[in-house]
């Protein structure tokens, strides 16, 4: 893997982490008045998939989509302004944190209801196939979404039509507070279930950004060649609470020890260690990256602060298109 790709993956993770942690830090200012689902700890998949996809590849995502949006190249300022409910937001303050869009980079939308964007991603895949495009559609999901009926329906349709679709599942082992063990049968990995439904599937370590990148790149190249849809499951872990800015290991649904084990596998630290060992990254470069990222994040928050609120009387705008 080229050195600059490795550095780019690392920097992208640092950026996503900085955005999420800044949201967390400033959340109690009460200016971000919407539910936010932070992806701290899960940055590797977002950075790797975002870089492996081309600009014209399309993506849809979920309630926890900040990382996917930023990974794909979505505009940071417009995302933060959206969380602030401002007119300058990517959805003009109508959608909030859970409804992000940046058409200029093929990020077609994230939606809040679990599983909701899955068939929409398949529809994008159908359009790419009809257009005889060699681009693909990437559907970001979590482990919970694989329990929805629409997931099974969509996997079946994509397999039947051999659509250029990548199902990208981040398994973080919790649906809100409900662990995977109460939701799915023991000894039946998600990717095995999907494989049995007719889609080639693979499972990998979701905190190893270079490994994820390599796997995703391979799989995408098969999909581009017309080999049909693929399913990738990456194990990872969200550090903070399901929804909100805090840590919540004390409330009793998961053990602090489990969190600490995953924290040892912090994707940013893992990458940092490897890149230092490979003489690609130095401590000086780390400070410099941190500095650039902090500047970018500060500017994004300033943009959000400066952007006006939508006018109250515009609440009826955008109900219908073409008017």
């Amino acid at each position: 893997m080229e050195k600059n790709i490795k550095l780019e993956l690392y920097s992208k993770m640092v950026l996503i982490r900085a955005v999420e942690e800044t949201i967390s830090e400033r959340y109690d200012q009460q200016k971000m008045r919407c539910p936010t689902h932070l992806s701290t700890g899960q940055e590797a998949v977002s950075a790797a998939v975002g870089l492996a996809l081309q600009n014209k590849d399309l993506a849809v995502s979920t309630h926890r989509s900040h990382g996917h949006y930023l990974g794909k190249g979505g505009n940071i300022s417009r995302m933060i302004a959206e969380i602030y409910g401002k007119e300058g937001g990517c959805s003009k303050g109508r959608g909030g944190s859970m409804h992000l869009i940046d058409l200029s980079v093929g990020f077609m939308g994230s939606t809040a209801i679990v599983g909701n964007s899955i068939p929409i991603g398949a529809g994008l895949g159908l359009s790419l196939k009809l257009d005889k495009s060699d681009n693909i559609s990437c559907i970001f999901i979590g482990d919970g979404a694989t329990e929805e009926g629409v997931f099974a329906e969509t996997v079946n349709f994509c397999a039947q039509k051999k659509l250029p679709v990548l199902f990208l599942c981040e398994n973080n082992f919790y649906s809100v507070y409900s662990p995977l063990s109460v939701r799915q049968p023991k000894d039946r990995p998600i990717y095995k279930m999907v494989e049995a439904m007719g889609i080639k599937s693979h499972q990998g370590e979701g905190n190893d950004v270079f490994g994820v990148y390599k796997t995703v790149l391979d799989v995408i190249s098969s999909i581009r060649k017309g080999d049909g849809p693929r399913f990738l499951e990456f194990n990872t872990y969200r550090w903070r609470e399901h929804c909100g800015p805090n840590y919540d290991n004390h409330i009793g649904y998961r053990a602090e020890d489990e969190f600490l084990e995953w924290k040892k596998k912090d994707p940013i630290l893992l990458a940092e260690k490897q890149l230092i060992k490979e003489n690609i990254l130095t401590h000086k470069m780390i400070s410099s990256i941190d500095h650039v990222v902090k500047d970018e994040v500060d500017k994004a928050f300033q943009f959000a602060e400066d952007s006006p609120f939508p006018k109250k009387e515009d609440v009826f705008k955008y109900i219908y298109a073409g008017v």
Partner: protein
Amino acid sequence: MSREISFTKAINEALFIAMEFDSKVLCYGLGVDDPKHIFDTTIGLQEEFGKERVFDTPTSENAMTGVAIGASLVGYRPVMVHQRLDFFLLAMDQLVNAAAKWHYMFGGKSSVPIVIRLIIGRGWGQGPTHSQSLQSWFAHIPGLKVVMPSSPKEAKGLLLSSIFDENPVLFLEHRWLHNQEEDVPEGDFRIPLGTANLIKHGTDITIIGMSYMNTEALKCLEFLKLQGISCELIDLRSINPIDWNTIIKSVKKTKKLLVLDTGSETGSLAAEIIAKVSIELFSEMEAPPARICLPDAPVPAGFSLTEDFYPTSFDIAKKVCSMFDVIINEDDFKHSSSPHDVPGDWFKGPF
């Protein structure tokens, strides 16, 4: 030029014209290319436009609705069909949380130009889950357009407009209209969405019908005229948005209102129309507004139970006469000769 064709042929013609006009129009749903071709409405389309644009689907109503949404985001115009509206209830997440909201919740960045044809069953034992008329549910969701054609000409003109509209449109076809025939213009003929249709001018009462209820209404207008009552009949046809101007203007003139709804009474479109008209014209009305709807019960399947379930033209005549204190003799009214559970002799079942 126009010529007499059936409602199903009119639908088929609209689909042909739309697919010919725009190569981005797709047509899919369970059974579109099967030997029955959705009551012949999709006949010939696959042969003409190919298997990529016209295709049968898995039995996955929710996912296939999402697929339509996804394809529409990048320029396609999918037209989906369900042989009964009731099956589409499996797709409410995609309809309500995605299709209806998409344009709004992304600040107008993209839109969802899809059409979903839903066929409402009636009679011949269709029963609780094959004959629901849920237009008022759908009308309750901001962002959706809801259309109910009442005749072949309306079906063609409204379907073409629906397909080329930029928004999600639910197109509700009443099964009992499918065999009706009428003069229908040839070519690309469109009726603007959001407009009601003044079918018959009158001076004494405004009757607002929708879908098949217009057929019943038309059967009793002559009788009512003989009783000295001049009825103005308006076909609502656009369930959302509603053409309030046409309704208000008419009721301002007649000062009496009767609404005919194909759905059950509570929370009906009739309730909404009566509420709005009462609020706006309360002091001008000469009688309390009235409505004729289905009973607030699931639709039963059995022959005997359905006998009085669906209101007929005679029920409409009785209701109107009661609003004018006119007493009528049932024997003077020409009743339908068909059994109560079929639209005419053409219908031999099974659905």
